[in-house]
């Protein structure tokens, strides 16, 4: 019974923790599957969080309760556009993708903080008035045990994140576009020979990853921090990147990894209220998520194999 209690109080937390990571990690999967390493996820999340908050603050009066959803969309679009920079550098100019990604991280944070100071005269914005709120799903939340666990006090956005993961799996594995995208990441020359434009596919993949990372950043800002400052996104992008690898470059795997991170995190919070773990010193609970992650990465997932052409710019006609 105790385990069920524990799970019941944990699940909503797991989902709100994971949602931003799921979005961003799927974005990472798209980009890396097409052969473009995207270290810039963190920066793209920063951009998403920033534009989401700015839009929300500016238009809350006009759009009322619709504002958070529109903020999300705007954040995705802004980050999508922002990610073109990475695409240009990494695909067209064949720059080192890691360097370019790091540049994205630096520029995004710089631009975000600078504009916040310019526009709001302070290191962080005000709190938004129209954030996302948790809701309980009608009828479904009345189901015993499961209803309490998965359908009450949950952000709808968490369901959307999971839906996106499934959708991403479908696109990558069941559509011609997905096949092309993966082939470009595995063997661009073969794909090119078959008449697939490597450049075009990679551009699209990077922009999709920008869009999704923007959604992730905005989700974080609109559900948890409710404002934007230099430290709003601190490491979530890299967590997502880890989730991509942990999930073996598979959208559902990445989602699972993100949920696992959320699980480990909330275990460390909720756990201390339960008698079994009550005597464990605080420090161990705090480091638990990281230890679990390292163990999982080192022991349980087996060999993680990246797409073959990941990180290598494609030069036409070059063997």
């Amino acid at each position: 019974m105790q385990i069920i209690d524990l799970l019941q109080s944990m699940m909503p937390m797991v989902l709100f923790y994971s949602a931003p990571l799921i979005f961003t990690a799927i974005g990472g999967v798209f980009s890396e599957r097409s052969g473009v390493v995207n270290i810039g996820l963190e920066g793209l999340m920063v951009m998403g969080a920033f534009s989401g908050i700015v839009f929300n603050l500016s238009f809350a009066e006009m759009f009322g309760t619709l504002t958070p959803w529109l903020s999300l969309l705007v954040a995705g679009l802004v980050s999508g556009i922002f990610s073109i920079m990475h695409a240009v550098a990494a695909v067209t100019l064949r720059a080192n993708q890691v360097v370019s990604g790091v540049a994205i991280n630096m520029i995004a944070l710089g631009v975000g903080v600078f504009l916040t100071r310019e526009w709001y005269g302070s290191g962080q914005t005000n709190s938004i008035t129209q954030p996302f709120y948790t809701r309980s799903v009608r009828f479904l939340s009345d189901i015993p045990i499961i209803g309490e666990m998965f359908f009450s006090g949950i952000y709808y956005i968490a369901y959307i994140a999971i839906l996106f993961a499934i959708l991403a799996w479908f696109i990558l594995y069941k559509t011609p576009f997905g096949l092309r995208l993966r082939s470009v990441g595995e063997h661009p020359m073969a794909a090119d020979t078959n008449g697939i434009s490597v450049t075009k596919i990679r551009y699209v993949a990077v922009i999709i990853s920008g869009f999704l990372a923007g959604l992730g950043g905005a989700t974080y800002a609109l559900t948890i921090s409710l404002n934007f400052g230099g430290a709003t996104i601190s490491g979530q992008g890299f967590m997502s990147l880890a989730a991509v690898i942990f999930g073996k470059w598979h959208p559902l795997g990445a989602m699972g990894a993100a949920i696992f991170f959320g699980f480990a995190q909330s275990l460390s919070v909720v756990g201390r209220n339960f008698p079994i773990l009550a005597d464990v010193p605080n420090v161990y609970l705090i480091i638990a998520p990281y230890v679990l992650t390292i163990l999982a990465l080192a022991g349980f997932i087996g060999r993680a194999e990246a797409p073959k052409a990941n990180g290598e710019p494609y030069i036409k006609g070059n063997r």
Partner: protein
Amino acid sequence: MKNKHWLILALLFAAVLTLGACGTADEDDTATDDATETDEDTTEDTIDFSVAMVTDEGGVDDRSFNQSAWEGIQAFGAEHGLERGTHYNYAQSDDAADYMPNLNNLLQQDYNLIFGVGFELREAVEQVASANQDTHFSIIDEVIEADNVASVTFAEEQGSFLVGVAAALKAESDEVGFVGGISSPLIKRFEVGYVAGVKSVNPDLDVRINYAESFSDEQMGRSFANSMYGDGIDVIYHASGAVGNGVFTEARNRIENNPDQPVWVIGVDRDQYEEGQQGDHNVTLTSMVKRVDVAVQEISEMALSGEFPGGEHIILGLEDEAIAVADTNSDAYTDEIREAVEEWKQRILDGEVVVPQTDEELEDYLDSL
């Protein structure tokens, strides 16, 4: 295989570089640059005294600690007709690596008095101060034993005691919550004072204490608050910097879902009324306000009049009006609570109640109740 190496390398790189990026990405160096540029045109009609401060990682516009200190310096400057850039200024630090360069930079510009704002600057101030005996330094929230350093700390336990009183009166359940940042003797004073305040009013109330071991992990604050409010706790006091944002988010979310659920947050360092606004409702019961500006002004005045309290440890508390309890939320902060808080405040001022600062003192205090 090559890819795998790349990824590992990339992750390391990214981690290192973005951490570094925090330091260089924004326009923080301008503060110190400004100062150097305008150094020439010293105005002669004003007094010959200059004061500067080095922020901690929060930055000068953190709406909290650093900003308050800077406001104190600005007020001091305005009062004496000083000019920014030549007679008063600040240097912003984005990470711990900036502390030393910032201090040295201000030192080279011959400031008479340099503040280190925040306990994180302790080591840096200590080093610079020992090498520059002629300049006066002051550290806020920490204690340094040196003849040219004035240490200022606050009696946070007094303010925490009073908000504990408010929490105990407001609570309808049999438990109240406390969310701490990184566990340290400093945050311990908040915790202990709070517990003492709560127990003084109602010895049967339990206090659930959670430390996030961070001052920035909002998700952690959110999770703690979720779990506390979920278990029926109705008042949470946070002493955890940005972690507290998560507590506010959770409280606001609960009010949105169920306006009748009694959830309250007690803010820290400054009046956090604004953070608690949810529609027509406000979840900020009160805030434990630390007037860093008062402290900075006071020390500056002393230094100006040649009575710089070097080597002394100044503790500012209720009697200096450097610690206060916010009463902005008049709907929640009822007259009954206000009166009780005033009453306890008077007792502390009269020395009738000595608020404990450590676990041992707390035990003795609770035994004496």
